[in-house]
Structures are given as structure tokens and as C-alpha cells.
């Protein structure tokens, strides 16, 4: 089996624990001054890649784990985090704040990167928690003409270049098998991402981080989709609390329920 060269694309998104707010102009979500971190699904991808290496799960071994993020300079923070978790090196593709890429543009970028880096396995989060598109992995597989296994909950390596991926479907699990090179997208149950340890956080500072631009991959950030308006879902009507049984009865009467 050939040695694995894994590419892990990661995205910097608004922190999972932060409640997103729509901006005043209703053109998008407020990002200024909001805590950002790595997309949780991408954390799973990084963790899985590192585990494949640590547990020597692939017969051919893991030659390289490269993380890539396209975003503003701050995206380097999540790349460092990924390297602290165990990735070997990082590529930062500079995209100006507000000039977000659409899934197709990202897929094209990743296609070029995959070819440049000679990757034979791309592990992506199944979706990012900001746009929720769940398209990039599939588009990338289409562009490359590689097999894809989406929403992986288990990844196993077999004889030859065969990879078995277990995915959860309604009413059970489905196991699919494909040969490298291939695309895997990760789902929540795949693993439990580690805490980056202090020594590793420090080592990560010395790992190589390459800076690139979209032009280096022959991509432009042109938009095909136009966002008309972003609004918050209607506020939930809060319930009321009654003091006692009498209060409940009078409230029910007031509402005409009894």
C-alpha cells in the first residue's frame, strides 16, 4: 500500500459555544469581536489523521499530514492548533475578511492543493457550522474524479489500497469500501478530539506554515451566489409561570381553554 499523504482542510468559524447574531445591515452574521475557533467537524478530521498515524492503522504508514485553511490572517491560529494536535505542516491561503469563498471555489482550491501536495487522502469535516453547506467534500470528489465516503463514523484500512468507511444512516450503519486516492468527510461520532498539550503547542510554533494566495492556485474569489438577506429566526414566545393552582385555572380560563 502506498504511504498516506493526508490533506486536512480546516475552517475558522465562530466558536461553537457563542450564539451568533445577525448584523444590523442584515447581510450576514456579526463576526467582529466574536470568538472564533476551529470548525468542530474539522477537529475530528485532524484528530482522525493523527490517530491513523499514531495507531499505525494504515499498512503503508502516514508520510505527511498537511492542514490547509483559506481565510483572513487569523486563520493561522486554527492552523497552529491543528499542528499542536499533531499535523506536520500548514498552508494558509490568504483571503480577505468578508471575501468568503463559496463551496465550489473551495473545492477548486482544494483540487489544486491536492495535486500540488500530491495528497492521496483528503479528510474534511462534513460541513462547517457557519454556512452548513455540506457540499465541499462532494464537489471536490467530483472535480478530482475520486471516490468519496461521506459522514464517516469509522475508518479502517484493508489490504491493498482499500479503505472501509462506516457511516451512520437512518436505521443503522452502512459500510462502504473504496480505493485510494479518496475523499472522506467526518461526522460527530468518529472520534473525540484531544486537548493540545503545552509542549505540543510550543512545538507547533516551529512547524512550517506556508503562506499562499488564491492566485497561487489559479482561483478567484468570484461569487456565484448572492445573499439577499439574513435574518434571525422568530423569537420564541416565552412561557409564563403561575403562582398556584388558582392562578393556573384563571390563566386557562383567560385563554379560553376551559
Amino acid at each position, binding site marked *: 500500500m502506498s504511504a498516506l499523504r493526508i490533506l486536512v482542510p480546516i475552517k475558522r468559524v465562530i466558536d461553537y*459555544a*457563542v450564539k451568533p447574531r445577525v448584523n444590523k445591515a442584515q447581510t450576514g452574521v456579526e463576526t467582529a469581536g466574536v*470568538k472564533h475557533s476551529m470548525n468542530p467537524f474539522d477537529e475530528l478530521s485532524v484528530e482522525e489523521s493523527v490517530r491513523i498515524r499514531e495507531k499505525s492503522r494504515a499498512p503503508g504508514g502516514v508520510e505527511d499530514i498537511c492542514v490547509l485553511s483559506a481565510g483572513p490572517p487569523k486563520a493561522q491560529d486554527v492552523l497552529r492548533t491543528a499542528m499542536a494536535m499533531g499535523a506536520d505542516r500548514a498552508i494558509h491561503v490568504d483571503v480577505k475578511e468578508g471575501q468568503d469563498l463559496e463551496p465550489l471555489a473551495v473545492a477548486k482550491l482544494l483540487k489544486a492543493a491536492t495535486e500540488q501536495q500530491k495528497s492521496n487522502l483528503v479528510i474534511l469535516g462534513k*460541513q462547517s457550522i*457557519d454556512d452548513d453547506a455540506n457540499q465541499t467534500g462532494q464537489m471536490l470528489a467530483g472535480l478530482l474524479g475520486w471516490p468519496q465516503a461521506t459522514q464517516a463514523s469509522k475508518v479502517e484500512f484493508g489490504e491493498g489500497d482499500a479503505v472501509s468507511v462506516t457511516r451512520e444512516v437512518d436505521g443503522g450503519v452502512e459500510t462502504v469500501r473504496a480505493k485510494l486516492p479518496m475523499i472522506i468527510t467526518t461526522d460527530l461520532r468518529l472520534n*473525540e478530539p484531544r486537548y493540545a*498539550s*503545552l509542549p505540543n503547542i510550543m512545538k507547533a510554533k516551529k512547524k512550517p506554515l506556508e503562506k499562499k494566495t488564491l492566485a497561487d492556485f489559479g482561483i478567484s474569489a468570484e461569487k456565484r451566489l448572492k445573499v439577499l438577506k439574513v435574518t434571525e429566526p422568530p423569537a420564541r414566545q416565552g412561557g409564563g409561570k403561575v403562582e398556584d393552582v388558582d392562578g393556573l385555572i384563571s390563566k386557562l380560563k383567560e385563554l379560553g381553554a376551559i
Partner: protein
Amino acid sequence: MAARQQMAPMLRRLRLAKASTNLGRQAALQQSLSRPVRCFSNSSPQRFQRTPPAAAAQGKFTSESYPDIKRDSRFAQLTEEHVAYFRELLGSESAVIDGVTRSDAIDDIEPFNSDWMRKYRGHCKLVLKPGSTDEVSKILKYCNDKMLAVVPQGGNTGLVGGSVPVFDEIVINMSRMSQILEFDEVSGTLVAEAGCILEVADQFLAGKGYIFPLDLGAKGSCHIGGNVSTNAGGLRLLRYGSLHGTVLGVEAVLADGTVVDDLCKLRKNNTGYDLKQLFIGAEGTIGIITKVSIQCPQRSPAQNVAFFGLESFDQVQKAFREAKGQLSEILSAFELMDEGSQALVRQVTNNKRPLEDKYPFYCLIETSGSNADHDSEKLQAFLEDVMEKGIVVDGTLAQDETQIKSLWAWREGITEALSHLGGTYKYDVSIPLKELYQLVEDTRARVDAAGLLGDTEEFPVRAVVGYGHMGDANLHLNVSTRRFDERVEKVLEPFVYEWIAERQGSISAEHGLGVMKKKFIGYSRNPTMVGLMRNIKTTFDPNGILNPYKYL
């Protein structure tokens, strides 16, 4: 953003999976995804969950476990006439829980009769829930005239039995007085009623960019009136100081119904004796606090949390000195946990440990500041420094908000984890930093020498652990037991108190005296002080109806 919402149903599915299958992997994942929140925090009042009447019914009465406390015969027995007066006074049906004339109210009263650890249990037959200061005043005046003893009660999350009756005292529960009355957005002064739940107040302040200067594990249940009455310490004390400094004023009702209106909103007020200070930490023995005004600091937008493993208590002290020196103004918490306490949390929660290897000590450091970049630069430099100097062996730095919460869960979850495992002897003490952990080691050695400590069922003691607020030289010594055994108590007391007295420590740093430490006050206060305290008690409450059998 829909994935954020989707994660919740996914988690539910995972839980189901955990229940139906036995895959350890799934269980582990469920833990990782359950996004542990600071342990008790996201729950509404937990008294009812924690103390189901059936379980409480098995609890031992305080009057049985403390046979030397006798009911004071000066106090009158409750009669129907008394109940009728309170009913008339409070009007609404839900404000009176009456076990005097109605036999079916026993289950309703039980939660007010015992504490959440099921360690203390009273014989109370009447619970009153006043809705205003005026009602509190009228209740107390009547009780004082009729010689009826009362127990003020907040969220009932105390650890020393201060908020539950011993005999048939009337419980005055403050939960209906829960309003936030006013907030000054410029000065940060909050005025709220005593029954306001701490987390509710903190959430309200969060919306205004401010923070409540007190934070503790039970914040989802405890009342701010109770916090002030017990002078609760908690996790933010290192940064914001004690309630003696942050509380600007209180409104309280004395035993005879007099309303003391000292609801001052000024930071500076040097006019006469500062009487409100007496109510702070008085545990309801000289009056019932009905309103509080408190100075709230600005909430820090940037927070970082680091978690360390250290080889010895010496290294912990070094790390603390370095943290103070290098992080100075942004250091907001420095918490200590020993391996024993972390092993118990792990046993109960089954969460993934933050560090790969085990160390005898762990520290949690939190920084809060206004500029995230500045803070993380400082913290990074500090971390590199302590690693290089070999003070810290391993550690981790929270990379996102979720990790901040799950790291905190390792500290805040200790109390809850212990309560799942059985009874716990808890000692909350202040000792000079140098010898802080020595107490745990000496206690452990003593329990072990008595042949009570072991890993198997035959030993009554499961573990002797220590953790606490390093920054405040405040240690929680916890002895986790498998079952009640008289020998354990004999080994521990008065040994622990004597040990502390020898070092001029305090036998109660932040939990108060209540029933538990009433008779041990002499270890930390000399007879002159205790005499003065008795005088104060008599001045404010000549008949002694307020929270009797406790405190002094």
C-alpha cells in the same frame, strides 16, 4: 448556522445509542459531545432533583445525629391559630406550606426540611414564602411576639446545615422575592431582592456587559441573599474580593420586625459603624436580608484557561508565584486539584482527561482581560517560561470556548462527583499557603493508619482528597466515604480542627458555621471575640428566634 442547532438532537441520539448499546466508544463520544457546562450551572433550582422526598425520608434527623442539641423550651409549639394568621397575612395559597393542620403536606415540606447533601434534616411543619419586605417584617414581628423560632432559607445549597431547621422552626423561604430591582449602567450597581438566583443575576448582568463579583458551582440554585448571608467565597474571589467589599448595602429585617434600610448605593460611606457588614456572613442569626445592593465589575471580554500537571506541592507554589508575577492584573483564578479528586471526577463523569499522564497535582489558571491578543501573548510567555523552568511538567491551553468550559468542569465538577459516590466529610479551611496541602497528607495518613482507607468495599473511606482556591489559600479537604461509620468521624474530629488551630488557620473559610461547625468556633476565634459576637446576637435578636441552635 443550522448545524449548531442540529448538534443538540445529535447528542440526544447519541445518548439513546449509549443506552441501547454497550459500545464504550459511543459512550466516550457522548461525553465529548455533551459539551460539559460548569457543573451545576445550567440547571434551574436543583433542590427537588437532589433531594427526592423518598430519599430524604431515609435521611437521619439532625436532632438524632446531634443528640446534645435540645429543643429550646422557651419556643412555642405551632398551633392552628398561628397558621391561620400567616395564611391571612400572606394571602396566596402557594405562600404557605402547611404541615400543621394538613397531613398531606409532608412530601411538600420535605425539600425545605433537608439540605441537598441529605446530611441535615429537621422537623419543620410550616414553610412561609413572603413576597415582600413588609411581609417578612410582619412574619417576624408575630414570631417574636409569640416566641416562634424561624430559619431563613435561600436556595438551600449550603454545606453546613445552616439553612435547614433542626427542630420545628418555621422555614422562611425567600424564593418569591426574586426580582432584580434596578441596575445603574454607569456605576455597575445592582439592586436585587434576596431570593434572586445568582445565575439569573449574572445572566442579566452579562447582557449589560457586567459580571456578578461572585461565582460558584451552585450558581443555578443559590440565592444572592443567601450568598451574602453566608459571605460565600467562590471562584472569582481572587479577582474581585470578598462580599464584604463588593456589597454596598443591604436591607434586612430584625427579629422584632424592624426593617433596617441600609440599601446604600455608594462605594464610599464613612458615617458611623458599618452595620451592614454584620449581616454579611451572619447566616441569618441577627436578621433576614431582604434586599442587596452590590457593586458589579465590568465583564472581561477575553478569557483564557490553562490546565497544568505538576509533580509536587512545591512546584504548585512556584507556579502560583510565577502566575502572580507574570500575569498580574489578568489572572482571575488559580485553582488547585489533587490527583485523587480528579480520579473521582473521571470515575463519575467518564470524561476524557485533559492531560495524557497523571500527576499528583493539577492547577487551573484563568485569565480575564479586555484585549484577547494581549492576554494570550502574556499567557503564552508565562506558559513557555514555567515549562522551561521545569515547574510545570505538562499542560494544555483551551483552544475554544467549549474547551474552557470542559476544563472548568474538572474543577467545578468535584463537589458533584463526590456527592454521587456517597457521603463526604467536607472541611473548608484557610491555612497559610506553605502548609496548605500538608493537611490532606496528614489526614490521609491518619485515616490510613486507623485502617479505614482502602480500595475495596470493606473500608469505609474511599479517598481523602484536597482541592481549592489556591489564590485565596483556601483548601477543601474532602473525605469520601462508602457508608456512615462512627470511627471515621472520631478519627477526623477534632483532629482536623486542632491541626488548623495550631497553624492559626480558619476552620471555615467560606462555607460558614451552621450546625456543623457551631461547637468548633473556639478553634478559630478567641473567647473575647466569641463573647462580643454573643452580645451582638442578643442586641439584634433578644429572644433568639432567628436560626437557633447554630452559628454561636
